[in-house]
């Protein structure tokens, strides 16, 4: 009892400190403009809020659409126990992404303009619409949990009836915007370091989001096990680990074939910051997780599966931030590094997301399986016999 109290205090103190400083930074941001809190400049207009909060945030929330595709479209029903928490994580992730966007946009009050002022040539326009629609889809996908909790059976029936088209829509929207976040950078061929620039950026973003999404499903299961005294669904997570390894390998093969075919491999021999960061990204994000997760013995070990998932996530963080910051640093010569306030606001959003997850788990049947449908199924079987 005493131990539980202590644990709460340590992280609680940290959380309160982060939120307090974050709120102070928020106040500065909305009263005195971007210059007062960020290190952004004319030569480096996109910083950590775009690179981490949005690019990494969306990538790490990919677990939601993957698990929906597995359980509701590919009908692999064993994975259902993982569905709800993955959808909840994704939903909260996207809410945080939208919040981060409100901080980053110079004129956040105009955010609704994307609804009525269309520019279909803009990748940003497409991303805005996809993120908007997908957040709504995630809400619908998660709504049965809320409806179950409050026993709104009729609404629940309606939602379940439209669940297939919603799931398909969710996967399509995710495919579009996960890849389009990569397309954002297609338009700066002259500004970006050649190791990262490629016409295939959207493909890399999509495939790596899948690999990372699987990693995230594993990681968040450990997080739930750690925080909610919940067991680990090891057999399911091991299989997820294998999926992740396959996608990581695919990205690795395509990326290096692309580098080789376009004659860019020699850039790897130039000793500079970009080369080191590229190497780090490849080793941590691809080689290590593949080496760990491809072996069945490791996938079945709690420890190694965890290391594999952490390595996947660190690799994804490195990749997204390399594309959005490292690769553009050489051209801009801005040597951008986020300010304390930028970091505080980012951390505040992450902390708020985690707190929201905690309360959702406390008050909603997140870790319950979809009991209704399954009980119904068994009844049918019994009747047939």
């Amino acid at each position, binding site marked *: 009892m005493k131990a539980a109290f202590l644990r709460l205090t340590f992280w609680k103190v940290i959380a309160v400190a982060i939120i307090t400083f974050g709120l102070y930074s928020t106040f500065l941001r909305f009263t005195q403009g971007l210059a007062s809190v960020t290190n952004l400049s004319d030569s480096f207009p996109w910083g950590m809020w775009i690179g981490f909060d949005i690019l990494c945030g969306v990538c790490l929330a990919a677990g939601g659409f993957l698990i929906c595709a597995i359980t509701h479209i590919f009908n692999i029903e064993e994975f259902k126990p993982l569905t709800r928490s993955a959808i909840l994580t994704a939903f909260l992730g996207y809410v945080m992404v939208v919040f981060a966007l409100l901080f980053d946009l110079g004129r956040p009050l105009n955010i609704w303009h994307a609804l009525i002022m269309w520019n279909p040539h803009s990748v940003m326009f497409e991303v*805005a619409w996809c993120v908007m629609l997908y957040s709504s889809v995630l809400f619908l996908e998660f709504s049965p949990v809320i409806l179950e909790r409050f026993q709104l059976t009729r609404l629940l029936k309606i939602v379940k009836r439209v669940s297939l088209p919603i799931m398909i829509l969710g996967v399509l929207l995710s495919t579009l915007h996960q890849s389009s976040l990569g397309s954002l950078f297609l338009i700066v061929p002259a500004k970006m370091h050649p190791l990262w620039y490629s016409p295939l950026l959207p493909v890399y973003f999509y495939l790596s989001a899948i690999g990372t999404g699987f990693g995230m499903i594993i990681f968040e299961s450990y997080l739930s096990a750690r925080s909610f005294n919940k067991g680990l669904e090891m057999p399911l997570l091991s299989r997820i680990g294998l999926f992740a390894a396959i996608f990581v390998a695919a990205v690795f093969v395509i990326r290096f074939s692309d580098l080789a075919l376009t004659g860019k491999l020699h850039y790897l021999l130039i000793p500079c910051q970009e080369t080191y960061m590229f190497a780090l990204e490849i080793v941590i994000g691809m080689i290590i997780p593949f080496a760990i997760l491809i072996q069945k013995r490791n996938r079945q070990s709690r420890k190694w599966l965890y290391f594999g998932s952490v390595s996947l996530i660190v690799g994804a963080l490195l990749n997204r931030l390399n594309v959005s910051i490292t690769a553009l640093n050489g051209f801009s010569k801005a040597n951008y590094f986020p300010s304390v306030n930028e970091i505080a606001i980012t951390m505040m959003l992450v902390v708020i997301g985690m707190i929201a997850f905690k309360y959702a788990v406390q008050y909603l049947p997140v870790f319950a399986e979809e009991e209704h449908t399954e009980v119904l199924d068994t009844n049918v079987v019994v009747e047939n016999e």
Partner: protein
Amino acid sequence: MSTQKGLLFDSTMCVGCGECYRACKTTNKLPETNSDPLKDHLSCSTYTVIEDHQGKYTRKLCMHCAEPTCASVCPVGALTKTSEGPVVYDENKCIGCRYCMQACPHSIPRYEWTSNNPRVRKCIMCHERVKAGMQTACAEACPAGATIFGNLDELKAEALKRIKESPSTYYPHVYGMKEGGGTNVLVLASTPFDQLGFVTNLPDEALPNFTKRALEKIPTVVSAGTVFLGGMYWLTKRKNEIAKENAQAKERKN
């Protein structure tokens, strides 16, 4: 006949007097930022500057691309290419995503970072004046004739003519003829353009095409994706049902 207007800046004729800089400030009602126009840099209060590259003067300003990257990336269409040539900005549409700044191959747009309702700032080629049939303030003010305003077609012909007539004076290329699909601001110089701080690694193709190629695939992805996902759903569902039926049949037989 194209109605597109443009500017031709001949850096070999520029004396670095700063008249264009001052005229730009006056016309656009911009606050003073530096008493010496040669020591200033582009900012939200400065749309054009003169740079001194070892005694060779050159101007920096929005190139007013034929197919502007900034206009193509703006999600709400706040930046537009006008029929007269200038690329203009509508602050009432802007949401402040700064994709235009990130995407501009010449890194021209500047931002009001200290403002609580910031705007993107850049040369708009004196759009109001041009619409009224006047020339830009910088061209009007230039005492040396280094910046001239006119129909884009005529300016292009003029630039090529100058190179042809005195090949010893000019580096044999008109910057803006094909860079990133061409620009409405053309530049002549006596040295290679990278020595004057111009971006020289731009493809000849207009940059918006790079994202257009990706965006064009969306309808295919959506339709193929729907068919694939729907098909997979049906197939796997059917597979599960058959497995269930088989299991039941087996039980019954037993």
